[in-house]
């Protein structure tokens, strides 16, 4: 943080008057906020409230990393974006909204995936890193980067009705790897795109991340260093557990194996960025158009829908057998390995997992519907909704 703190103009004194009235913040604290810098990884569900509140609070420099564009399905929870910014770059949409709230701050844009190649360069100017990403490779990358550069990592993660918040700051406590030395195998934990998320949940968790960032900048209160907060919206429960530094931690332990950024996609066994979602690769995929042609030609294909039962209320393919992915391993006897199968889900991710599971059980005559039932809606049946 800069040693010389900025002074406040009369306008700024008025803008931040509710901060100046709090003894724990005051004029000195507001000057610290104006001199501070925060990097926000992701400008989606978690990034939206974080960026809005940090901008409003007068954090002087905020970096935004994201490579996506605003999609209609984002608006259910990504409250920094709106109808007027559909199809715009998320970082640009977010900056416009932040500067509308507070034109006096600096917002830096990094319209690129956050990777081992650029992470050090991007993070270099910032005091605090906020993890609002959506995949394991980027979470391990963010953690290791923070450990290696000595920066605090304000962590937040969400799934359906559950949220987690912590501050991983290896100088003073454990890191993310102390708690989770290894990621789960691919497919065990569905993403929000597959598993869904209550729209307000990232609001709750992101707001807590913003709170922790402000406390770290101001040096007040007790940040969640060495503590993990677990939130469940259905029970309205907040649980806190103690985290200890793991003496065998491969990145923050006394004998680290990881001393530079590694290949996190390989480490996690899943792509973090720029992969073609909903495909298996090789000859395992079939497009919706091809499937429609083969069905029309009278080919006998057993359609297996691996979605959850409630998703059938949105869209369905006639004649398909429903076997939710979680039940597939236990229902293999229902399948005939001599019969050609086409597996599908919403967008092709779960069915790709299902295909891998069946392949490991010895099945060979099967295809994955590339892009899922949504691709069918786009290519074959425009009367079907896309979700």
């Amino acid at each position, binding site marked *: 943080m800069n040693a010389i703190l900025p002074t406040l103009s009369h306008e700024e004194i008025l803008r931040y008057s509710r901060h100046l009235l709090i003894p724990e913040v005051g004029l000195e604290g507001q000057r610290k906020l104006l001199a501070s810098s925060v990097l926000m990884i992701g400008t989606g569900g978690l990034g939206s409230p974080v960026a809005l509140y940090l901008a409003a609070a007068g954090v002087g420099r905020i970096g935004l990393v994201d490579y996506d564009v605003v999609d209609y399905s984002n608006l259910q929870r990504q409250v920094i974006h709106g109808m007027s910014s559909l199809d715009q770059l998320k970082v640009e949409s977010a900056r416009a909204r932040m500067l509308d709230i507070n034109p006096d701050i600096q917002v830096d844009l990094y319209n690129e995936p956050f990777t081992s190649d650029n992470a050090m360069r991007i993070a270099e100017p910032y005091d605090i890193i906020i993890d609002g990403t959506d*995949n394991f490779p980027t979470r391990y990358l963010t953690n290791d980067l923070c450990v290696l550069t000595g920066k605090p990592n304000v962590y937040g993660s969400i799934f359906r009705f559950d949220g987690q918040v912590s501050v991983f700051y290896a100088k003073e406590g454990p890191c993310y790897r102390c708690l989770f030395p290894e990621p*789960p195998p691919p497919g065990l*934990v569905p*993403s929000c795109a597959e598993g869904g998320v209550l729209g307000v949940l990232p609001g709750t968790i992101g707001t807590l991340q913003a709170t922790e960032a402000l406390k770290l900048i101001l040096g007040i209160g007790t940040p969640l260093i060495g503590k993990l907060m677990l939130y469940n919206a259905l029970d309205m429960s907040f649980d806190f557990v103690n985290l200890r530094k793991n003496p065998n931690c491969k990145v923050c332990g006394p004998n680290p194996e990881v001393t530079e950024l590694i290949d996190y996609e390989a480490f996690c066994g899943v792509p973090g960025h720029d992969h073609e979602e909903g495909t298996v690769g090789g000859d395992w995929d079939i497009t919706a158009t091809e499937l429609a042609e083969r069905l029309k030609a009278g080919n006998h294909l057993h359609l297996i829908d691996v979605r959850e039962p409630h998703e059938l209320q949105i869209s369905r393919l006639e004649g398909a057998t429903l076997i939710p992915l979680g039940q597939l391993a236990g229902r293999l006897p229902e399948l005939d390995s001599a019969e050609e199968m086409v597996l599908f889900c919403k967008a092709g991710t779960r069915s790709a997992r299902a295909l891998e599971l069946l392949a490991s059980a010895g099945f060979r005559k099967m295809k994955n519907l590339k892009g899922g039932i949504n691709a069918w809606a786009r290519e074959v049946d425009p009367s079907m909704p896309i979700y």
Partner: protein
Amino acid sequence: MPTLRIPTPLRTYADGQTEVSLGGSTVGEVMDGLVTLYPTLRPHLFNGDGQLRPFVNLFLNDSNIRDLQGMDTPLKESDRLMLIPSIAGGRE
């Protein structure tokens, strides 16, 4: 009886239950009871030699059982166990 909280991502393998009460005087006994009740949970929690998998964290009240006596940690009737999963969502 000690209670055990099952996190959302694992509920699919536990009949949708959020919390179960299971008899047992150690963490290991309760976990044995859990995977006997819900056998499809076992591969998600334990590896081949019966160790907790590295991406699974089991907390007794507010402490990680790895920081206590692991599966041998004794339990009281009022104890609460919590499985803490890796979740990654946030940007999408």
